[in-house]
């Protein structure tokens, strides 16, 4: 469903991503692991068109949606639409502070609905539908009691779950998580991981950048290990994490083995 081909990204003279290739099947969860500064976040940002790769192609369902050598794939108004293939849950949530949890989840859907041809005739029904869906999503992530609270009234874990519901509201084909548990204490980490786990069980196609090795092993179908902007190793989650082949992967995982597994 997703093919990433030869993606490279430079910031000035620093090469952050070097010739990244991987594929992702529908319904699979892919975990990207690696130390800080290995380019994981930049890769997610490239997929969401927040950064423009200097080289490479991105294909969704066999359709070319980005080609660094072809400016016709990079038109501003088309990019806006193409972004909707992907959802992104930011590391620091980036919820809109002036809106309640429910309004955060509804906002983008409401704005997109205005572009529908039947919007004027069916305005009421469409808005009722959007509201019902937002409430449903917030219930799924365990926030049915907190819908009308503002982000500053919620804990970090609750904010993260609102952010997940907000991303899901647009029905992205591929949902990306940027370190979903960083900046959360262990108790809150649990509640967020539970939500992601339940998404995986529903065969949501996901890319998860994470430092939680045990979680990656248990939830992801596939793991990619990145180091200094290159994919060092990729394969089925259990294999990569329990029997890494590359020296660099072994070295990286050794640091986690005592603490977490």
């Amino acid at each position, binding site marked *: 469903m997703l093919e990433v081909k030869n993606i490279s990204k430079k910031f000035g003279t620093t090469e952050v991503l070097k010739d990244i290739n991987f594929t992702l099947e529908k319904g699979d969860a892919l975990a990207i692991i690696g130390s800080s500064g290995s380019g994981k976040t930049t890769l997610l940002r490239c997929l*969401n*068109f*927040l950064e423009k790769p200097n080289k490479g192609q991105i294909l969704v369902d066999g359709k070319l949606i980005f080609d660094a050598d072809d400016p016709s794939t990079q038109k501003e108004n088309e990019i*806006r*639409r193409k*972004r*909707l293939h*992907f*959802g*992104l849950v*930011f590391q*620091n949530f*980036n*919820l*809109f*502070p*002036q*809106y309640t949890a429910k309004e955060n989840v509804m*906002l*983008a859907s409401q*704005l*997109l609905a205005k572009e529908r041809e039947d919007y004027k005739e069916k305005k009421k029904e469409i808005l009722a539908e959007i509201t019902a869906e937002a409430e449903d999503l917030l219930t799924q992530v365990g926030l049915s009691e907190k819908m009308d609270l*503002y*982000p*500053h009234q919620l804990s970090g874990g609750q904010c993260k779950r609102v952010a997940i519901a*907000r*991303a899901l509201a*647009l029905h992205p084909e591929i949902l990306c998580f940027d370190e979903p548990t960083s900046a959360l204490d262990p108790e809150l980490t649990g509640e967020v991981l539970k939500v992601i786990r339940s998404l995986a069980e529903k065969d949501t196609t996901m890319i998860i950048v994470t430092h939680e090795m045990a979680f990656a092993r248990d939830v992801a179908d596939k793991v990619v290990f990145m180091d200094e902007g290159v994919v060092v190793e990729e394969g089925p989650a259990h294999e990569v994490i329990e029997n890494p082949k590359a020296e660099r992967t072994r070295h990286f995982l050794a640091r986690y083995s005592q603490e977490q597994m």
Partner: protein
Amino acid sequence: MFATVLQALNEGFFETLKLFAVTLLGALPLGLIISFGSMSKFSPLRWLTHGIVWIIRGTPLMLQLIIIFYVPGYILPQNPWAVENGRFWAAAVAFIINYACYFSEIYRGGIQGVPVGQQEAGQVLGMTKTQIFFKVTLMQMVKRIVPPMSNEIITLVKDTAIARMIGWQELIYAGYAFMKGSHGYAGLYWPLLFTGLYYLLFNGLLTILFGRIEKKLSYFR
């Protein structure tokens, strides 16, 4: 006697209000334009606006007022201020330029203070740039701008007194006129005390107004 003083002070206060209102009407939008200039990607424009803001903020308003009122008469074939209400308009121009520069820095702080992540979150959710500005960033900007803005606007109320430097008859001028009379000590301090009360009351009202706005915006952080 009291009625005469009060009437004169009322007239003076009305002039003060006029300058205050005209300055706000001019400086609020002009400040926004200047702030866009100071954030421009085109560096000559950025340097030019930074230069202007530096000069205006770096010199006394009183000096700017004197220059704007007297210099055109020397260098232009016809003094633009030699019209009815010329002193008022000269003062208004000086005040608008001065306050627009201060406002521009407040706007810039407000705009740049909204985290980039807010914009990115909007982008990822498929919003257009206009939607992101109006639905996401604008309110957060306004919230950031209100406290420094109220500070600056209260200063403006008192700064209008400087306009009397070029002989424009605002509130202090009206109060001062009585001190030259033959009312002894009382004639000296009562009129000035009253002018003080005018400023105090007006700024009290503004403080309440801005307090309300801040409270309205306190539902989010």
